[in-house]
């Protein structure tokens, strides 16, 4: 059974790139445009990995990570967040919030898959 991944990003193009790469790698991919959408998607559904951007309208990434960790049934779901090289400080904040790891933007498919392979198999 294919592993399921949720990608949360307000940029449609990023969602598409991630979606395309991961589908080709054999994952089942769902997408959400912001934290609120992600929350309603997750409601009771099992997911193997969440990839989320940090800066999003409505509900940003840090809040989403905190929400996921606090929700029963999702406390152990690996969460990777998307960030840029210049926002290293965000890493600590995100890690403290409960993120498992991160992916530095811009990324190539190999980098994305390598990061994913650290957290799900």
């Amino acid at each position, binding site marked *: 059974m294919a592993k399921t991944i949720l990608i949360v990003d307000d940029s449609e193009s990023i969602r598409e790139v991630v979606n395309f790469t991961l589908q080709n790698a054999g994952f089942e991919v769902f997408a959400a445009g912001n934290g609120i959408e992600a929350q309603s998607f997750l409601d009771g559904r099992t997911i193997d990995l969440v990839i989320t951007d940090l800066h999003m309208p409505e509900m940003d990434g840090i809040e989403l990570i905190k929400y996921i*960790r606090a929700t029963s049934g999702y406390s152990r779901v690996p969460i990777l967040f998307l960030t840029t090289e210049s926002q290293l400080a965000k890493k600590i904040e995100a890690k403290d919030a409960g993120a*498992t*790891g*991160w992916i530095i933007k811009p990324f190539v498919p190999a980098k994305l898959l390598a990061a994913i*392979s650290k*957290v799900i198999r």
Partner: protein
Amino acid sequence: MDNFQRKFLEEASDLINQLEQALLTLEQDTGNPELVDSIFRIMHSLKGGGGMFGFDNVTAYTHKLENMYDLVRQKKLKVTREMLDITFESADHITSMLNDDGSKAAEIKKNEEILNKRIDAILLGDNSGEIVVSRGDEVTQIGHATYYVKVKPYEHIQKNGTNPFFLIDELVGLGQAKVNIFYSNIPDFENFVFDDTYIWWEVVISTDKNEDAIRDVFIFVEDDCEVTIEKLADRDIFGLEGIEPLLVCRHDFPFDLDKIKSLVTAITALEKAKNESALKVKENSGDEHIKKFAKESSISGIRVASEKIDMLMNLVSELITTQAGLNLYADKNKDAELTRIAESLENISRQLRDTAFSITLIPIDYLVVRFRRLVRDLSREVGKEIVFEAKGAETELDKTLIEGISEPLMHILRNSIDHGIESAEERVAAGKSPEGRITLQAYYSGSQVVIAVTDDGAGMNPAKIKRKAIDKGLIPSDAQISDKEIIDLIFMPGFSTSEQVTNISGRGVGMDVVKRKVSDIRGTVQVSSQLGEGTTITIKLPLTLSIIDGMLVRIADVDYIIPLSVIDTIFAVEHSKIAAAFQNVINIEGTQYPFYYLRDEFGITENVPEKEEIIMVKYEDRKIGVVVDNITGEYQAVLKPLGKLYRNQDIFSGASILGDGTVALVLDTHKVINQFTKYNELN
């Protein structure tokens, strides 16, 4: 065939040559990881090239072999005799795939099916279930190192969705590893928190990746666990002798790092000493090959198509001939500036000549690889244990000579294996060691290269040879000849010791063929044999074939060239003294010198000068005078073959074109001396 494809074929045949060499060494040293790496790399190159240049069958086949050797590299398989046999046969198989024009497709396919079955048997047999498909990582093996990595997660690590097992798994994927798991921190049941992590790991990993790559594995968990990385050695320590017990995985038992480090240090030092002594004592060919392979990865040479070298040599030849013309013109014109330019140009031409010539030299080792294979295959075929040893394999020979000498040497080796070396039983009965020994020795001797093949076999039986020669009508039944002369009969056409068709040369082996082939490249063959002790066949070849420094001499307005390397001294003598000489011996300054009067030999009678020159030429321990009219000077001679039509005139080793465009003949003084000696023996 396009250029790229031809290039690939050239490369492939080189690779196969290297493969055979590596296999032969691996056979003696089955645990050597460098050799396994070499073989793996060769397979990989063949696979890659095959795919690019339209040899898909080669790609498919080498892929299987590559897998097999990859498993060996990962220590999941051990090198076995069957594996070596398969690989040897694979070398042949790949060669035939590369050379096939389509006509042998069926045969090749059948062969491949058999080989594939054997490979599968190895892959399944030894390691049921343990085989994992390689990760498909890059195969660059340069800069292997071994690290110790301790991973001690903090209890909360799983809180953020991290699975530490994945990290250990990723780490192990970087190379070859041994992992110790420590359970000792797991608390009593009451204190046990389900979500917490209590276990930790020690990993010894050998990888071609650097320390950063290892640290990268733990990038997400830097703050969630303690990671210690320590480099143990700048090499792959797996498979080193004696290391195994130190890398046994027992949970809760830490690796003894100090012991591992000191053992690796000791082994490395020992190997270094061994390699250095192997360099000095060039005898142990096994070590030499290992060295050579280690060296090959950093080789500083380039590959050049042999036609280009031929072309270079031709151009150099033409340059030197033109140079001679220029010198002649400068001499005539008495123009100081022109003479100066001609002289400095000549200096450059000479250096260019020497450099170009050295490019065409190839060490005999090039052949030795093939010979090892031949001896190995043939001795197994005839069920004899034979050790083949090569000494002086670094001796260099002209490319053309290497090509010309290969087949005769193969015949000689074949004869030694077939007829020379006895069966193990016979050898033991004769008080010899059960395994026979064949030694190939090459060395320089003056202006010649000597290659001697010695076996410690049964030796030749003069009585038997004589009987056979009489049966074949080669000598009369009442011939009175010495044992030495009898043994020389083996070189006569029609005296073949074996008529059977062999699968090496494809035809019967006759020593007359050997002799003819060797003399085609202006060499000589000698045999000496002791009944019960063995046989030595000695081939002597001229060092150079194409350009020689010569002395230009004249007889009756015709120019001849004598190689400078053989000239000892020169005397001027009155013709009357020569005419009065008894039995071609002349007394000069109190010493008796035998001499050869070329005018007599050449049938030239007109215009005998009053004063002639005797050029003393040496050959081995003999010195003989050659009488000419006069000496013109030194000359750089580009040797040209005299051609088939003049092959009976073997007193000339060739011809050279002089500056004025006329042709001078090059005297082969060795032949002169031999003829002289024979002539004297007859009288």
